[in-house]
């Protein structure tokens, strides 16, 4: 079967960031290197697991972003993906999900994938939109927030367990072609193997340019970035660590949560 994984680059979740001069995007400071989104790694891992289980499976990875995002495709190749596709955009920064979806749809429509996997959301925008919108655009069946997936080729379907509220899971059978978004789980994404890294570094990426068919009018516009409003006014404790510990104990005693 033919699998496609959609991946993107983002700063690590705990990277220090600030709004840049354009007021339209951010810059990352310190030593944090951008990397593949955490949930995307789970999607790649799931694709590789299926490849190991179902003979004849090939896995492609696609990214829709600026040239430097090639690093996430190399990472995916290192994890065991067969082929990397880079759908280039000229600039980075905020991208409307509608635009990303139309670019990826144009790039992959003719390639007849059986299964597309994405992360449940990215780590920077955390929109959770591109996967399910892409599914609808390609007329694929779709299920989101999955923690476990099993392919049944003879029945042309996948079985998915999706995480829902209250510590419960919903079990779903999905006809192929399907798009599944992956939530984090106990399936730890593997590290690239040495042999795969060597292959990844020498392998050519397929670079394509696609023009979004979405006009600017239908996409939302980012007007301004700012620091978030605080819902509670946190009092920051001052002094040494011991001073802070003493003050916290005193605050908690006054509130009678500590006796």
């Amino acid at each position, binding site marked *: 079967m033919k699998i496609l994984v959609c991946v993107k680059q983002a700063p690590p979740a705990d990277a220090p960031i600030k709004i840049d001069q354009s007021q339209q995007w951010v810059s990352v400071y310190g030593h944090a290197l951008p990397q593949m989104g955490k949930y995307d790694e789970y999607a790649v891992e799931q694709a590789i697991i299926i490849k190991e289980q179902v003979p004849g499976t090939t896995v492609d990875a696609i990214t829709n972003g600026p040239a430097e995002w090639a690093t996430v495709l190399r990472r995916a190749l290192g994890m065991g993906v067969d082929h990397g596709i880079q759908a280039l955009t000229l600039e980075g920064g905020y991208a409307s999900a509608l635009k990303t979806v139309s670019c990826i749809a144009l790039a992959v429509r003719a390639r007849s994938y059986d299964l597309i996997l994405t992360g449940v959301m990215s780590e920077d925008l955390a929109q959770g939109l591109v996967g*399910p919108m892409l599914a609808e655009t390609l007329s694929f069946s779709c299920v989101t927030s999955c923690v476990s997936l099993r392919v049944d080729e003879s029945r042309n379907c996948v079985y998915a367990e999706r995480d829902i509220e209250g*510590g419960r899971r919903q079990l*779903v059978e999905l006809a192929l072609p399907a798009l599944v978004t992956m939530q984090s789980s106990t399936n730890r994404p593997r590290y690239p193997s040495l042999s795969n890294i060597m292959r990844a570094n020498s392998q050519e990426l397929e670079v394509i340019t696609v023009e979004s068919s979405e006009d600017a009018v239908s996409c939302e516009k980012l007007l*301004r970035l700012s620091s978030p409003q605080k819902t509670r006014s946190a009092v920051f404790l001052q002094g040494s*660590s*011991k001073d802070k*510990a003493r003050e916290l104990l005193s605050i908690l005693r006054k509130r009678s*949560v500590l006796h």
Partner: protein
Amino acid sequence: MERSIVVVAEHTQGRLTPVTYEAMACALEIQRIQPARIVTVVVGEDAVEVAQEAIDACDQSVLAVKVPGLDSYNGEAYRWTLSHALCGLGASWICVPGTTQGFDFGPGLAVRLGASCLSNIERVFEQDGQPIFVRNLFNGKISAELSAAAPTLLIVQPGSFRWERHDIKGRSYVEVITVEWAPTHTRLLGFKSLYPVDSALRDALVIVSAGRGIERRENLELIHRVASLFPRSAVAGSRPLCDNQWLPYRLQVGQTGATVAPDLYMACGISGAQQHLAGMRGSKFIVAVNTDPEAAIFHEADVGVVEDLEVFLADLLEESARLTP
């Protein structure tokens, strides 16, 4: 056609879920900026019964989309029935609760309706007669203001809009349509309750919760010792810790875990991802300990401690022992 603002209700076991009321509150905010009628849409086998609750809550119209046989959520059913039911409503804005369910059917429904889609909406304000939508980016560290052209589907961040019960003026009514639907591509096989939420979490007055910032599994020992300072306390954690198998999933606080509201919630090394905040925002008093002064958790905290977690928790235990005779 008269324009409308649509709210897609979420319901379970015959009752509207609290997030549905929050989506209604978001719709009311938009209505103040751009007057239009609000229509709450309920989908399912028991849509008519559930619609009655929506009518009792607000003086807006309610559309019950009765789907025989649809006794629990199915994404394919929701996308299909809603794309038909919404056709005649002239919806400018469609408000969907930001739960795993809303995120499952919402984006696809938007595509089907030719609408754009914005998620994690936490605030709406007016600018030149237009609604501007606010959401956060980068794990809560940055706030973004977005404008969108109608029609747009809005996925509403849980815990962000407050519903206030108001007097019913008696203009409300339920319209019922019945839609026949059979699954073609998505079959629901059932539910698994692998990780029933720990009753200790529900009953605890104090929850000491650990996140990725604890770095080493051995540091959970410190978390347990801090929890033992308090009567009726429990230890919990964020999702990454449970994925690492450092804590069982039944102790996970957040959107896909437990929702808690103890007297004290002590967040240790938790960055404050939206999915976690959704599960603990209602706590009466929140103390956050984190090395990163920019961490989003501090926006939700009453008391903030910027310190190395290991050092600070050890000091807290030591000072507590010193002060207790």
